[in-house]
């Protein structure tokens, strides 16, 4: 955990400083907004990583019946949804500058919004059951099931249809723009940094909930 915290602080400091100061490729329309790559895309990577951890922990609960895994699964889903909301907000700001509107009818955008709805449903499901073991059982089943439906929604469907979003439907992803690896040297550290931050937040939340349960 110590290494994750140090890594997170170092990489995020580097990626924020370098993200705003380093040279970026000059492109029409995009201009300086290309820097959103360092903050918007890592949010989604972190969200997917945390939701994967959540589904893995739900599976672990199913196979072991240990309530500790259910608590972890809930916390990872919670933190993952925070990152998803941040990803939507950063994307909206970027879209306003490049596409001219905060929200467009785009498969990628709709997919991610519906994906967040799945997890809102998960939280409602959890809050509607009082009994702890039953809550854990039902919500972990729903978690694994809905994660399996999230993958086609975010990764497969947008690729099959036309989309404005970079990386989909014939539009180039960022790989085309960084032939001299200018973007890559900031982007990859930012991804690792944000993932470490997400795991760190989840760890603190886990400790907090464990202490609260201990007091009760």
């Amino acid at each position: 955990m110590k290494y994750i915290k140090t890594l997170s602080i170092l990489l995020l400091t580097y990626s924020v400083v370098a993200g705003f100061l380093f040279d970026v490729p000059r492109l029409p329309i995009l201009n300086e907004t290309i820097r959103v790559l360092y903050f918007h895309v890592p949010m989604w990577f972190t969200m997917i990583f945390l939701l994967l951890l959540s589904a893995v922990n739900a599976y672990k609960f199913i196979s072991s019946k240990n309530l500790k895994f259910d608590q972890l699964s809930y916390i990872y889903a919670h933190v993952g949804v925070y990152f998803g909301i941040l990803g939507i907000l950063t994307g909206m700001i970027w879209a306003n500058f490049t596409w001219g509107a905060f929200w467009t009818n785009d498969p990628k955008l709709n997919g991610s919004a519906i994906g967040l709805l799945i997890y809102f449903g998960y939280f409602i499901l959890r809050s509607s059951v009082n009994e702890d073991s039953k809550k854990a059982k039902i919500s972990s089943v729903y978690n694994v099931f809905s994660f399996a439906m999230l993958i086609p929604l975010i990764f497969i469907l947008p690729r099959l249809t036309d989309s404005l979003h970079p990386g989909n439907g014939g539009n180039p992803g960022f790989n085309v723009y960084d032939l001299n690896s200018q973007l890559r040297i900031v982007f990859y550290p930012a991804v690792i940094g944000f993932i470490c931050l997400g795991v760190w937040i989840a760890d603190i939340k886990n400790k907090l909930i464990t202490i609260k349960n201990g007091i009760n």
Partner: protein
Amino acid sequence: MLDKILAILYKDFKIEINQSHLFFSVGLYVISSTYIIYISHQPTGINNPEHWISIFWVIILFSSISSVSKSFFQESEKRNYYYYYILNSDELIFSKLIYNFIFILLVCLLTFIIFTFLIGNVINSLSFFLTLLFLGSLSISNCLTLISAVGHQIKNNSILISVLSFPVIIPILLLLIKLSKISTAEFSWIIIQDDIYLLILLNIILIALTKFLFNFLWRN
């Protein structure tokens, strides 16, 4: 295993035929909502095939959610205890999957007939659309059966089923709407093959997950 599945299916259909309020209530729901759409589009009718298709699938979505959610609720508590003794979870869930599939398929066909009768037919390649109805009801039943089993565990909470099933079913519904739009024009295998493969793949994943997760959900 197969004879037990058939026995539960037989029992379910016998109850359904004797009481038959579920199918007729869903049928009435379909007819009345189609009629509202027919009246509201009165002077010209629906000219745009996209409207036709989206309304068609929305009606099927709502009617199938209300019918599938009943499939577990109609089992009484005592009968569930009886099932624990004579069945394992696979037999129960497969019989429910087949039952829901047949039920939703009937609802789909009924909706299609009423739509054709009242609003008109925009479908050009009929055989492809009927195959799509078959595949669609299969995927909807695979998707909703586990959700209704989850909802069954939470007593007196039927609204939760619709909240939980909407986001999960949307990928399948998007694929079905996209394929139906293609079926309004000339049929060609090259355009649809990616989507059909994806739909079949999703169905395999859904069946596998349902089998595995229901086994865990059912044991208390």
